[in-house]
């Protein structure tokens, strides 16, 4: 959180606005919704700053459940309470669920069409690049991080090496690396307190 008295800023106008925002967002999310959530919530609608997104994502990540559903729940709750949380979650799931059931029925007919196979391959490659780029963009928010840049940068790099190269289970990365980062940050914040 930056300040308690934030200037007026964009926010969802109504529950239906919230529902539509998350439905449209989910429908753009081929191969994962994460990149789209960041683009829509932070860059287009500006309901969250880059730093707030990172903080919310930390909670969404550490809690069980699909991360993008968790963050939808949290954003909806912030504006409209429990009704908002359920509306945002419904927006994220309802229409994509109907769509995926239709696709499952169609799948047996077209799965092995070479054009369809190729198109899916192309979209998966784009989606992978999109998500990696989202991580790089989020890294810019580390500039305002309490830790010196070389520490937060080293932690991010160590995380990538641990997960990609050494294939460590997520829970260990969160507990060990996350634990070290949280402890270091705690000490910095503590020292800054009057």
């Amino acid at each position, binding site marked *: 959180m930056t300040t308690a008295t934030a200037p007026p800023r964009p926010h969802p106008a109504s529950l239906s606005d919230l529902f539509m925002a998350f439905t449209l967002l989910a429908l753009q999310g081929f191969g994962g919704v994460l990149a789209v959530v960041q683009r829509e919530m932070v860059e287009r609608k500006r309901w969250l700053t880059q730093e707030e997104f990172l903080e919310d994502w930390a909670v969404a990540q550490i809690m069980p459940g699909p991360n993008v559903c968790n963050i939808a729940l949290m954003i909806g*709750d912030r504006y409209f309470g429990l009704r908002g949380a359920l509306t945002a979650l419904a927006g994220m799931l309802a229409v994509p*669920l109907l769509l995926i059931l239709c696709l499952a029925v169609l799948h047996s007919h077209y799965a092995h069409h070479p054009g369809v196979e190729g198109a899916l391959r192309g979209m*998966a490659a784009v989606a992978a690049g999109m998500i990696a780029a989202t*991580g790089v963009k989020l890294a810019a928010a580390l500039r305002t991080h309490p830790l010196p840049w070389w520490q937060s940068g080293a*932690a991010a790099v160590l995380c990538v090496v641990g997960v990609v190269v050494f294939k460590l289970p997520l829970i260990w990365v969160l507990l060990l690396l*996350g634990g070290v980062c949280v402890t270091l940050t705690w000490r910095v914040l503590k020292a800054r307190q009057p």
Partner: protein
Amino acid sequence: MSGAPIHIVLSMADWCSLFGHYLMLSLLSVGGAISTSTEMHRYLVVEHHWLTPAQFNDAMAIAQAAPGPNVLFVALMGWNVGLNAGSYGAAFAGVAVTMLGIMLPSTTLTYLAARWAQRNRDRLGVRAFKQGMAPVVVGLVVSVGIILGSAQGAAANSPLWPLWLLSAVAGLLVWRTRVHLLWLLAAGALLGWFQLL
């Protein structure tokens, strides 16, 4: 699937067991429901034979290709279990049981935790946690992109480098420009359709 590949009979106790199993998996799904997919495979395919291995793999592939959260692969598994049990009614019941099971516990927990964190956002511990996790979160997001990128399979007799090149170009465009993500996905789909990848 038109004709179900296997026929199974599900008793009320089986439905309850399915629901209970997904309730439990939900609590274990740190990092997303996808992290419990190997356990789902063990339960549905190996232990109970409610799904064929092909149905399981197809459900994962379709959910990956379709828009929306990846957790919807759970709905497809419920759908196929229901179809194997003999009717579209059972298929819808399967979707409801598995999706409610996988979502209810995690959603409730996250809701309560997020509320607590929001109420106590000025506490040192909460600020240290949320800000301290940021570097790890950045690293995890980049890792997901790299892992998805390296999981991609080229067509039988074509090299992998065009896929990597496409990923890199898409990544650069997302990073440096504000081009709409759907244009990039459409471009990837077109290149693939015409077998240029």
